[in-house]
């Protein structure tokens, strides 16, 4: 077949990484005919960098994707070979799940999941060009000459746009290890007028797992019970659970870095122009910028049950392969290790996400959506979250429905999208808890409360997920209200003493009392998982209420919609920087306007005065 009719595909998704897969999954699951185009369909979601999914803030993202009916949580649960809760002692709002994946399973499961969707078709194709007519996207043209037509196109091209790999003196075009980059599409986007930036990221070397001495390393054991992202997953281990290992670099490692800096494409060779992530520095950066640290911690992680490789976390580098091996062999337990693949840096093109509206559609070309690393983010979870939003919105637009918008107070996904389209990026963007001002609300335990109704509204949450959700919430709500009423027959729980027998809720509000100690007074049908949710909801109720009040107070600003044609130019009181940025980015609400860098509180006060005037945009002061 040479081409499709325009009504064959409602949505075309370009790219088969986490963003593309989540986008295609969402659109097709919502019942919109969807075509996924990717260079090699057998290589979707290969997890080309670290083997981990989740972690601080990222774990919340995965729970949110799952709550909305997305794929990542279910896939990860089915491939997990190591799971652990982070931040257990730091507070319920920041508790987060992290799993390590069996990489081959993940790739296989993702493909299998997509194949179950009747509305989805997958084609191997490298997209070279967008077909655009009168400011609207009409389809894509491929390197092999084929064209596919649809009025909604989701670009999820990852690091492939103009991708270039660096290792020592070697520079070669590439999107990932041994895969060709997408040069044509990068040119095409530039030709359409998109504002592009260059970013850089990197990956560490992999070593043969049979060539290291684990005895010299600190062990990090996985959880003894299955820990899952998705409420749809069965509560069992996906397979054997493997430990991770921690080791430290030493002065000999650092000396090798310093001695070989002239061979670093980042330093001596000065080949790399893209900006790398601060939170994921290369070992070169660590040694140079934190020279006072005598050691740096590394994480030795398996990449699969049967994979021969170990991932050396924290050791990302673009030094030449021979230097990498020498450096590895300075590490404890790795003295005789074999390097199976050297690390490298990758530089790629991104499109400024300030080109997007809050549905991830570009303002320049109607029907075109951008998600994932193309928007300057890093991380599988960030990519998947955007993929879901872009795919769902493309599908909703194809059906003529209202778009999916998640508020900053509703989810990390909302924070992610709002940060991207409002602030733009100047380094690869990673989700961090400190980016979320309402994080007391954005907990891993209540993602379903926050988002499953949204997922149901847009048709992404299916009946079985919806039923599980409604039943669990009913049980939980009953348990919470019972906890306020039910008095315990004791005055002492652990080291805590009460003047009178406390209610279950009063007991739980003491910081030291954990729900496990009260198990015998809880209803029997309350699962351990729901009991933990009960504990969290009761314990931090006060914080939640205060946060909700703050949100109500801010709601007016968040909801005050700025007319799309608002004339910022006429307002002399705005700073010229604010005026220019507001006119370019056209934030939808006053709240979004306030988060644009360079727009000061004063500017917002002025805007709000103007928005309350009878005629928007009429100059405040006539002369």
């Amino acid at each position, binding site marked *: 077949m040479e081409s499709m009719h325009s009504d064959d595909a409602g949505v075309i998704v370009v790219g088969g990484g986490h963003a593309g897969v989540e986008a295609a999954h969402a659109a097709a699951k919502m019942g919109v005919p969807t075509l996924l185009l990717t260079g090699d369909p057998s290589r979707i979601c290969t997890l080309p960098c670290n083997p981990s999914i989740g972690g*601080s803030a990222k774990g919340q993202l995965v729970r949110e994707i799952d709550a909305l009916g997305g794929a990542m949580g279910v896939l990860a649960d089915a491939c997990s070979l190591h799971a652990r809760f982070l*931040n257990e002692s*730091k*507070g319920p709002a*920041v508790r987060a799940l992290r799993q390590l994946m069996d990489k081959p399973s993940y790739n296989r499961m993702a493909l299998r999941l997509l194949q179950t969707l009747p509305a989805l078709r997958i084609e191997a194709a490298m997209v070279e060009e967008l077909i655009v007519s009168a400011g609207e996207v009409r389809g894509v043209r491929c390197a092999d000459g084929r064209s596919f037509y649809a009025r909604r196109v989701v670009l999820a091209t990852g690091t492939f746009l103009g991708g270039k790999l660096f290792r020592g003196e070697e520079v070669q075009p590439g999107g990932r290890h041994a895969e060709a980059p997408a040069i044509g599409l990068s040119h095409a986007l530039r030709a359409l007028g998109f504002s592009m930036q260059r970013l850089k990221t990197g990956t560490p070397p992999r070593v043969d797992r049979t060539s290291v001495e684990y005895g010299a390393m600190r062990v990090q054991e996985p959880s003894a019970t299955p820990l899952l992202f998705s409420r749809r997953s069965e509560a069992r281990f996906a397979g054997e659970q493997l430990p991770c290992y921690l080791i430290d670099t030493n002065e000999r490692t650092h000396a090798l870095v310093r001695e070989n800096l002239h061979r670093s494409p980042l330093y001596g060779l000065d080949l790399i122009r893209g900006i790398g992530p601060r939170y994921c520095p290369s070992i070169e950066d660590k040694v140079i910028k934190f020279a006072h640290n005598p050691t740096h911690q590394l994480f030795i992680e398996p990449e699969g049950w049967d994979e021969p490789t170990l991932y050396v976390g924290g050791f990302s580098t673009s030094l030449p392969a021979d230097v990498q091996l020498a450096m590895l062999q300075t590490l404890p337990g790795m003295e005789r290790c074999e390097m199976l693949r050297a690390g490298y840096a990758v530089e790629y093109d991104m499109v400024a996400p300030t080109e997007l509206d809050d549905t991830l559609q570009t303002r320049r070309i109607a029907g075109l959506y951008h998600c994932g690393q193309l928007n300057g983010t890093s991380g599988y979870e960030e990519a998947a979250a955007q993929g879901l939003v872009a795919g769902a919105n493309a599908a909703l637009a194809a059906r003529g429905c209202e778009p999916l918008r998640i508020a900053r107070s509703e989810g990390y996904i909302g924070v992610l999208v709002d940060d991207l389209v409002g602030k733009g990026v100047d380094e690869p963007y990673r989700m961090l808890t400190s980016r979320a*001002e309402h994080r007391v609300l954005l907990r891993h335990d209540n993602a379903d409360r926050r988002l499953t109704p949204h997922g149901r509204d847009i048709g992404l949450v299916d009946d079985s997920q919806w039923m599980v959700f409604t039943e669990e919430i009913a049980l939980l709500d009953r348990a919470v209200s019972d906890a306020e009423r039910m008095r315990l027959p004791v005055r002492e729980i652990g080291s805590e003493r009460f003047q009178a027998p406390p209610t279950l809720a009063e007991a739980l509000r003491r910081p030291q009392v954990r729900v496990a100690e009260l198990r015998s007074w809880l209803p029997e049908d309350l699962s351990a998982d729901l009991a933990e949710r009960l504990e969290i909801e009761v314990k931090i109720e006060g*914080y939640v209420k205060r946060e909700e009040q703050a949100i109500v107070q801010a709601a007016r600003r968040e909801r005050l919609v700025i007319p799309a044609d608002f004339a910022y130019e006429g307002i002399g009181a705005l700073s010229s920087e604010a005026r220019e940025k507001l006119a370019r980015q056209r934030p939808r609400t006053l709240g979004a306007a306030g988060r644009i860098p360079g727009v000061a509180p*004063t500017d917002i006060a002025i805007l709000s005065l103007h928005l309350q005037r009878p005629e928007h945009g009429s100059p*405040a002061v*006539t002369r």
Partner: protein
Amino acid sequence: MKRYATARIEHLQIAIPAGGEDAARAFYGTLLALREVPKPAELAPRGGLWFRSASIALHLGIDPDFHPAGKAHVAFACGEYASVLARLAAAGVAVANDALPVEGRAHCYVADPFGNRIELIDDAPSAANDDAVEPTIVAVATPPGQGAISVVRVSGSRARSIAARLTGAAALAPRHATRVALVDEAGRALDDALALSFPAPHSATGEDVVEFHLHGAPVLAREVVRAAIACGARQAAPGEFTRRAFLAGKLDLDGVGAIADLIAAESASAARAALANLGGALRARVAEMRSRLREPLERLAASIDFPDEVEEPARAPLADTLGELDGELARLQRDGEVGRLLREGVSLAIVGPPNAGKSSLLNTLLGEERAIVSDIPGTTRDSIEERFFIDGVAVRAIDTAGIRAHADKLEAMGIERSQRAFESARILLLVLDASLPLSTQGEELLARSEGRTRIVFFNKADLGTSAVRPVSGLSICGSVRWPQTMRELRAAIAQAGWGTEHPDLERAHLAFGEQFDAVARALEALRSARAALAADEALDLVGNDLRLVDAALAHLSPEAASEEMLAGIFARFCIGK
């Protein structure tokens, strides 16, 4: 012109019972202030009344078979809604207020004397009715009564034409003081004055501005304002110049606050405090506090986002830092109180039995400093309030003797005010006659003022001291005729008003109520954080409070808080896998 089959309402008719004319006249004519016109001679015999004005035509017709209209009704838009309601209430007419405003306007229902339903709607111009063009505004720009020169400021598109009318000068040179002979709208001479013209946009408000600098007399300044209004300006609302300046981009919000302070500043000290604010001294203090919060907050954030790599902050040093910040914030709040004191002054009620010497005490305190006798109509000041200064702080003395002097007007009102002064004043100055046995009224005042911040002054000690006795709080025995006594009294007022420590005028003070609130919010969140820390709560929850502290402080010195913190994290910790 387009013609309509039915063009407009010519009049409305309400039915009244026979013989109801007088009651109707009292209600519609007196209370609702409608203008009665004689009925045409040919209709007069039928009885009833007509009311007509430019926009109202209301006919009251006699209906022999009268039934009050309970649902059908006429609605009047009232230009002076509040005073109409007050008149109705005074006349004993029941007013059914509707809590729900209609299109943003207040409204209510009343019944006329016959039970007809009448609706009254507040016709105050709402923002929606404002035309896009801002009217030209005028006001006296200098504080009333102070200084040798009064400044009248006119701002808006008509400022220059108004200036031309009032000065007779065709055009004023921009930004030059021009000596002019001011006349009013009718050409009557007002004053020999200076006029300055600031054409838009290079003026304080960004509009055309003209200023008249007049010789002292407040009466004269008011006369110039009146004349400008007669020439088409409108009296400026409080803060309106500042609002326009703000909208024109001439001030940032901090500046607005400080300018508001300058306007309200009653004393030189307040002016200086306001200026310190404008210079950002407050900002510096707040920035210092935020920087102390930053390290633990950054460490906490880093330990959460990179749990395998960064240790969470230790609790004990954090508790110490929070304790110090608590002290610092509380000090800021106290300084804010000082700022308020400097801005608003301190209220002092002089109370005592008749003939104890209250009036002569006040007159002596006022002395040459007698600054303002604030009987200017239209100002909100109480007409019996006097001001004098101690160490640059305004003392607002409420002379209850003065109330008595005006008592002939309305005895009840005087007593009520006296009572209110006694209740609300920050300091009570109780004046007693030392030379005579204490009167019952004196005893009663001593008892009632117990527990208040008070100064008991046994006056007339030059005539005898039989009434003098030990009392709680500050007490002074002497005579208003003795300079030493007056010095002691001033010192006592200062001590009662702002303590022994002289207000530190060089420190920054919180200008706005809003800033007060921010400090209070910060302090509340900080105390919650300290409590949570002490109770061994999870550090993220402590951090949640601390972020609220930071956010409240950021309100006082706005910066891009979260981005700044991220930068701090990445500079401080080596993170990343």
